[in-house]
């Protein structure tokens, strides 16, 4: 269990075609994350990703459709796609989610929460072990944001995640925005939550933005990263001071893409929060909330 953490370090961003030029121009990226479902594993190289790879930027393969929390059998072709892309781009890590995405043969197209019960944990352990056996590099699993929770939980989310990671040896993709979103909607303290997680199991972290509508905070990936999430980045980075390098932190943006200046300012703010635990407010006005 003391295997060295996969080397995902520095500032990162989710690679999207709409952001490809801005990403190419950014000189301080340690890694990018590619969405497996957007690529043909047997197709031609994605040249922008290949150029990033050639200049030393790590490429992490991230899946959204494996449904590790689901009772339906894991798909061999989805596992194969993850494996092939990881090999193609020499990824240090593959990541997926503590979630299910389909049930009764129907797709939701989104990450659904699992019940925090013993049975659900056992199902996840079995699926994660099966995935690990099929994949060429270590696997990290991500905590999700959800507006709904199953009733009759038998354990807290930190307890659930801790035991899951302990039983499987999987790494944690710590999504700080998801912790923040859940903390806002359910009324708990995000730092107290984070303090209960095995932070030595974190391979890398996500940040993203969201928006409040009618009293509900939505993790949209379509708005600026809130200052409160940048504070969590600073807290997170601060926990690793004196212990060697902190895990990488990346921005996820999927929609309502910002201007180049806004994106640059946001990445710079994240890097600043990582570097010295200081929250720097972006000097460029945030895009409108709404």
């Amino acid at each position, binding site marked *: 269990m003391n295997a060295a953490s996969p080397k995902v370090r520095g500032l990162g961003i989710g690679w999207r075609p709409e952001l490809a030029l801005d990403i190419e121009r950014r000189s301080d990226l340690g890694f990018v994350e590619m969405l497996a*479902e*957007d690529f*043909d594993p*047997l*197709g031609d190289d994605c040249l922008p990703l290949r150029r990033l790879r050639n200049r030393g930027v790590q490429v992490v393969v991230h899946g959204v459709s494996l449904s590790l929390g*689901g*009772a*339906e059998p894991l798909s061999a072709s989805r596992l194969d796609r993850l494996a092939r892309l990881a090999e193609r781009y020499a990824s240090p890590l593959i990541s997926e989610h503590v979630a*299910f995405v*389909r*049930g*009764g*043969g*129907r*797709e*939701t*197209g*989104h990450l*659904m929460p699992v*019940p925090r019960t*013993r*049975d*659900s944990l*056992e*199902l996840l352990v*079995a699926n994660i072990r099966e995935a690990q056996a099929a994949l060429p590099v270590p696997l990290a699993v991500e905590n999700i944001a*959800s*507006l*709904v*929770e*199953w*009733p*009759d939980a038998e354990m807290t989310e930190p307890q659930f995640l801790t035991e899951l990671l302990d039983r499987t040896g999987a790494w944690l993709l710590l999504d700080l925005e998801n912790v923040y979103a859940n903390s806002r*909607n359910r009324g708990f303290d995000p730092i107290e939550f984070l303090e209960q997680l095995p932070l030595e199991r974190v391979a890398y972290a996500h940040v993203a933005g969201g928006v409040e509508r*009618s009293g*509900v905070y*939505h993790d949209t990936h379509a708005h600026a990263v809130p200052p409160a999430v940048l504070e969590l980045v600073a807290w997170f980075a601060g926990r690793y001071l004196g212990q060697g390098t902190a895990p990488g932190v990346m921005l996820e943006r999927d*929609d309502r893409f910002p201007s180049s200046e806004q994106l640059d300012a946001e990445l710079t703010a994240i890097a600043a929060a990582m570097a010295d635990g200081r929250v720097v407010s972006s000097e460029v006005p945030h895009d409108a909330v709404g």
Partner: protein
Amino acid sequence: MTLSAESRERLARSQAEFVAAMLAVDGRAPESFDPTHWQAAATALATKRRRSAARAWPALVESLGDEFERLWTEFAAAHDLPASGGPLADGFLFAKWLMSHRPLSDKARRELISVELQHQPCAEGLKPRRRPTVRVARL
């Protein structure tokens, strides 16, 4: 402790019920779930599906103008998200469904053709064409 077959079955059933309720047009929460949270989640999910498909088919959406949302809602209520091909496949099936009711604009038609050059329909939705349909030779 490993998962018994009965427990796996039980989980499969509860997940199937969860998904069916989440995709249902009436947005009604299953028993024991908070109805307000459920409604917000179901609405957000439907919005995500529509926005994702729209992003993949901008010419089609533009050609429908104000009618897009109504037509999309009708289509989505009767057609599940395809298992393969994501929002591109979803919009493709929407375009095909539309064409059975009315003609597409020229721009939307061209957009459909360009997608068909790079992808082929399959049982689960769309998948990439491995061999190019059209090669352009430099003369």
